[in-house]
Structure formats: structure tokens, C-alpha cells
């Protein structure tokens, strides 16, 4: 572990510190969703006509669909007509803004969140796209990236500047009819990040998007599309926070990754949406469809996620291993405390020959929370010599929480090799007492044991994120020791 106990100690006694609200002038649609709202949304974003068609097609299909109910989640009915589908800070003029034109209030907000958008202050080596409610408010280092041939911009801007490129890839990994929440997203998504790494380019810096929900009664529907062309490499990070509110808010995102021959995408998430209070009031409903398609030979994708926030998390970042010799990885830490619920995992779909996948999942459940791992490993007929290794560990803190594991394995190719290991353990009174007898407080002891449990996943995170992730676990576990 790189972070010391002191750091955790300092952080453990804090509440959800990202729970503040930014006051600024906004433009918000009245609640409700119909074709007119979608047309208005497309118009306000000045989208090419194919986008409106795409959205309407998705919307019409969505209306025929039902919410999935197979997850191990207890969800109160969501009234989709009571949500506003667009909310954005008012800005002067049209088109993308430079940093000096961004509302200082917004810059201040990101600074408070520890994400300074000023390029001078920013950690060198990380470019940031800041998405605030329905729009991207700033993207840093765009110029430097452009010099390397890398496109990194809000997807709304990409639709203006590179419509053909977006059209070529959008919805090809996660179609507009994929599932209930993906269809809803396709109909109403407002912003997100677009990344294109040209052939043979190693992206010179880490790319990151920071998602912030601020407005009340709105949903955030973001769309991220990343294309790594042949022989390219990119590491991308996302972070998310929201104010503390008594109402549940909906966040339904879609992330599509396309990886060509010999290319690699490393995608890391630290998800810290507002989880609700200790009585389970409020919090974000996080319904996310993330999928990567390894279309080329030797393509590689790696998902690393640290999920500590949200009242409900429904999320299965998946890898479709089409290209021969392609590789998919999934490293996950999902922590639930109080009344949080998480049903998360991955899908590894082996289609190409000699494809391999690794799944390391660490679920931690405390308080009265429920934590479920759900994973599918599917090996198609043609996937000769496919390999999978799955390790799925659950840790319980206290005796009122639950951990559940649902591994699904479908193999149609006899030469495939699939391994699954699973453990469930509980932080014992004896372990806590032992640590206390050495001078550590019970909460520090829990933090230490949980961080130790997650070590294999944390080491996959870029360094700044690893420290943040450890600190987050400390905060999220606050009050979990009686």
C-alpha cells in the first residue's frame, strides 16, 4: 500500500465532502419526455440530422421496453416523466468556450472537488473534460493533444467537428436497442467525452472526464465513445460526484470502446456518486452500460473500477473479444455501506481464437448493504484456446449486510479453459481486537484490512487515482464499526 494510515485517518472522519451545491444560472427543460423534448434537445445542441433520427429510433424502441428486473436490487419505481432531461449552466454565445470564458463559479466548483481546470495548476500529464449536469464545460490540454493527433473533446463538440467519425462508431458497440437504460441514454444523452487515438499513436497524457451532477430533479445521461485505432494506446480515467439530496437522481450512461489491431485502452473509474444518507434516503441511481469491443488482433482492453458511491449501482463493464489473441481484463472493487445496493460485474465474450480474459472482483459490504457480483464468461464455438481466470472475493463488515455471487459460464469450445475462484470472508472481532491491541482504532483497522483486501485492484489504477480510491474507502466505511 502506498498511502499511509495517516491519510486514511484524516479522511475517515469526513462526511461526503462533495455534497455541496453550486448556485448558478441554468437553463433547464421542464420535466417530461416525449419526441418533442428529444427534438428540442437535438436542436439546442445543433446536431446533424442523423442524430435526431438515431435518438427517435432509440426512443420509440425504449417505449416498448420494460425495466430489467433480474438484478439483485430493490428499486423504487422511477417516474421517467418527472425528470428533467436537460440542465446546463447558461453561457454567453454559441460553440465551445475557452477556459477564460468559463463561469468562475464553475471553475471554483471543480477546484473544490480537487480538479483544477487551469492547465497551469493541473497535474501535468492529465487532460480533463469536465461535464457538469448535461454539458461539458471545459476540456483542458486540447491543443497539446491535437498536436499528437489525438482528439479529446465533448461528444457534442465531436458531433459538430467530426460528425462522420462519430457516425461511424456511435452505437456500434452498444446499440440503441441494447437494453432499457442504454436505449433511454441513446434517446436523451446530452454530453460526455469523445476520444480518437489515431494509428500508432501512444496518447501522450492520461485523459480523464469528471462528471458532476448539480441540478435537482434532473437525470444525467452521458455518452462516452473511445476509439483506439491500430497500434495505439490510451489510458482514460473517469470520476463522478453529486450533491447530497433527499431525492434519488438517475444517472444512465453508456460507454463504448472500440479497439483495433494491437491497440490498447485502459479505462479506470472511481465512482463516488452521492450514496444516500445512513438511513438510505436519497442517492444516485447508477445504471450504466459499458462495453468494449476488441475488433482487431492482439487488441487489449482493461477495465478497472472502484465503486463506492450511488444508492444503487447496476453496471457490467464488458469485453467482446472478437479479434484473435485479444485480451480483456476487469478489476473491480465495489463497496456498499448503510443501505447501498450494488449489482455489478462483467461479461467476457470470447469469439476470436486464443483470446484471454481476467476477472478480479472484490466486493465489500458493510452496514445493511447488499453487494452482488454477477459475471458471464462466454466462449463461442470458434474461440479455440480461449482462457479465462476469474477470482471473486467478498468481504463482510458486520452481520447485517449481504454478499451474493452469480457467475455464469457458457462454453461451446472444448479447448477453452475457464477457472473460477471465489471466497467470502468476514472481518472478525479477533482481527479488530488484535489491531486495537497494537494501538490502532477500530475504524483504522477496518480501513487497513479493506485496503489490503483490495490491493490487487488498486495496483491497476493510475497512481493519483489509487490514493484517492483508498481514501474513498475510508470515508465510505465511516460508521461501519459499531
Amino acid at each position: 500500500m502506498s498511502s499511509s494510515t495517516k491519510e486514511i485517518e484524516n479522511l475517515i472522519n469526513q462526511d461526503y465532502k462533495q455534497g455541496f451545491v453550486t448556485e448558478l444560472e441554468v437553463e433547464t427543460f421542464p420535466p417530461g419526455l416525449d419526441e418533442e423534448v428529444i427534438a428540442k434537445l437535438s436542436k439546442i445542441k445543433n446536431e446533424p440530422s442523423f442524430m435526431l433520427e438515431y435518438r427517435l429510433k432509440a426512443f420509440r424502441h425504449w417505449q416498448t421496453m420494460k425495466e430489467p428486473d433480474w438484478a439483485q436490487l430493490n428499486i423504487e419505481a422511477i417516474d421517467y416523466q418527472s425528470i428533467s432531461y436537460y440542465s446546463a449552466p447558461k453561457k454567453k454565445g454559441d460553440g465551445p468556450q475557452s477556459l477564460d470564458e468559463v463561469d468562475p463559479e464553475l471553475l471554483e466548483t471543480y477546484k473544490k472537488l480537487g480538479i483544477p481546470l487551469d492547465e497551469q495548476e493541473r497535474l501535468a500529464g492529465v487532460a480533463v473534460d469536465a461535464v457538469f449536469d448535461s454539458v461539458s464545460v471545459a476540456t483542458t490540454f486540447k491543443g497539446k493533444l491535437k498536436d499528437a493527433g489525438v482528439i479529446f473533446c465533448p461528444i457534442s463538440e465531436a458531433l459538430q467537428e467530426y460528425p462522420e467519425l462519430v457516425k461511424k462508431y456511435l452505437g456500434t458497440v452498444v446499440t440503441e436497442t441494447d437494453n432499457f437504460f442504454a436505449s433511454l441514454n441513446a434517446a436523451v444523452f446530452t454530453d460526455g467525452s469523445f476520444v480518437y487515438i489515431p494509428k500508432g499513436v501512444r496518447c501522450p497524457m492520461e485523459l480523464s472526464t469528471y462528471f458532476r451532477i448539480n441540478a435537482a430533479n434532473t437525470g444525467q445521461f452521458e455518452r462516452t465513445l473511445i476509439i483506439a485505432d491500430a497500434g495505439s494506446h490510451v489510458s482514460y480515467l473517469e470520476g463522478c460526484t453529486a450533491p447530497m439530496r433527499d431525492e434519488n437522481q438517475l444517472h444512465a450512461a453508456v460507454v463504448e470502446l472500440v479497439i483495433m489491431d494491437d491497440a490498447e485502452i485502459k479505462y479506470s473509474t472511481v465512482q463516488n456518486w452521492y450514496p444516500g444518507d445512513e438511513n438510505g434516503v436519497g442517492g444516485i441511481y447508477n445504471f450504466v452500460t459499458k462495453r468494449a469491443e476488441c475488433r482487431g488482433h492482439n487488441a487489449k482492453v482493461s477495465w478497472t473500477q472502484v465503486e463506492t458511491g450511488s444508492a444503487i449501482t447496476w453496471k457490467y463493464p464488458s469485453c467482446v473479444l472478437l479479434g484473435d489473441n485479444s485480451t480483456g481484463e476487469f478489476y473491480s472493487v465495489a463497496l456498499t455501506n448503510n443501505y447501498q445496493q450494488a449489482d455489478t460485474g462483467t461479461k467476457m465474450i470470447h469469439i476470436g481464437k486464443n483470446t484471454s480474459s481476467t476477472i478480479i472482483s472484490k466486493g465489500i459490504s458493510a452496514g445493511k448493504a447488499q453487494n452482488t457480483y454477477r459475471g458471464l464468461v462466454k466462449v463461442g464455438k470458434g474461440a479455440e484456446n480461449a482462457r479465462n481466470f476469474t477470482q471473486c472475493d467478498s468481504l463482510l463488515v458486520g452481520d447485517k449486510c449481504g454478499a451474493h455471487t452469480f457467475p455464469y459460464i457458457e462454453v461451446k469450445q472444448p479447448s477453452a479453459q475457464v477457472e473460477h475462484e471465489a471466497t467470502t470472508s468476514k472481518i472478525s472481532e479477533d482481527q479488530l481486537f488484535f489491531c486495537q491491541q497494537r494501538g490502532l482504532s477500530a475504524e483504522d483497522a477496518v480501513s487497513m484490512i479493506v485496503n489490503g483486501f483490495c490491493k490487487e485492484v488498486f495496483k491497476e489504477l493510475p497512481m493519483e487515482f489509487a490514493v484517492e480510491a483508498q481514501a474513498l474507502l475510508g470515508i465510505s466505511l465511516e460508521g461501519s464499526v459499531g
Partner: protein
Amino acid sequence: MLNIENLHVNVADKAILKGVNLQIKPGEVHAIMGPNGAGKSTLSHILSGKAGYTVTQGKVTYAGKDLLAMEPELRAREGMFLAFQYPVEIPGVSNIYLMKAALNANRKHQGLDEVDAMDFLTLVKDKIKLLQMDEKFLYRAVNEGFSGGEKKRNEILQAAILEPKLCVLDETDSGLDIDALKIVSKAINSLRTEQRSFLMITHYQRMLDYVKPDFVHVLADGRIVKSGGPELALELEEKGYQWVEGEAA
């Protein structure tokens, strides 16, 4: 240092300790011997603050403070160390990390600066020589896959690092072969100072051959029934516990 007066302790309404009196002065080494079920482990647990015990009578003062009112971690930070009879395994947490976190928690309590990773490494590499342990044990998860003897050595290593004022050794000799017993005893002897006190809880006399106590007490049926010098341990070994139990009755 430690003053136990008329201590009565119940576990689930059953009386285990029935009036223990014991005084330990700075620098003294006391051994408590006794048959199974005499209440030896209960005594070590009650001193270190483990949950599940009820004090029905009596008091314990440690360095002038009411020990029983203190949280376990506070007792530890005030210099009370328990070497566990059955050290627990903590998967995923490296041994060196735990020891550093513990030392820094103690130092913080004493108003001292925390030790950084480099200084700690120097310290721990020095101390580990005392126990003749391989440095690889530092990077393994706490006690995970350690043999019984390795666990016990690891306990004494932690004592050497934390430099407590009072060491309670709960059957540290059990599970040790003769070579390991010699090493552990040597390490304990090297920790003896004029200020540091020890309370050794043991079944057998053999450890006392290597770590010479100043006082030996026999605990039977929840009371100290006999106290004396080191020669008492030898007499016990010869005559068996029935001798003192009979004498007490």
C-alpha cells in the same frame, strides 16, 4: 506500574476470576502459572481490554490510571502490549505495514513525529535480527501461513518495535520447539530494562529456564494461591498443580 486489587471477572455469568491481587513494579518480571481453566487467559484478556468479560468487583490501575476504563487501543498506546496466545491472521495486510501503522499510532499518541517508510525499514530490519526471522516475513500478510512458532516470534518482534512499558506474554512458549524457544527467550531478555515490566503467563516451567522471573505466582480456580521466587516454578514442575490446589483448599 500495574496494580490489580481483588479482581472478580465473569464470563457469561460464570465467575472466572475470584479475587486476584497482583502488584508489578517497573522492571519486574512476573510469571503466572496454573492449570488449564484457572483463568490465565481471562486475566490477559481483561488487562488488554478484550470484549466479552464483566468485572464484578475490584480494580486495576496501570501507571496510576484506571485501566479498565480505557479503550483497548488507548491501553496499547499507553504502553501495554499483549503477545497473543493465538495471533490472528490478517490476509491482504502486510506484516510491515501493520507494524508501521501501529508504531505511528503509538508515536502520535505520545506527541512524536511519525516514522517514515525508510526509517521504519531500518528499524525493523535491525529488530528482526533479534528474532532470527527471514526478512521475507515482513512482506507477507500478517501471520498468514505462518507456523505456530513463526507467529509467536512475530509477536515478540512487534513488542521489540513498539517498546511497551508492560508486556503481557500469553503462553508465548506454547507451540515453540526448543530452538525457537531459545531464540524467543533471548529476544525477551534483550527487551528487559529497569523500566519495562513483564507478565508471563505459562503452563510450563521450561520457558522460565531461559527468562528468569523475579516472582512466580500460581493461579488456580480464579485466585492466586501461591507466590514465591523462581524456585516455586521448579517445585511446581516437580509436584504438579495438584500440590498447590490441595494446599489452597
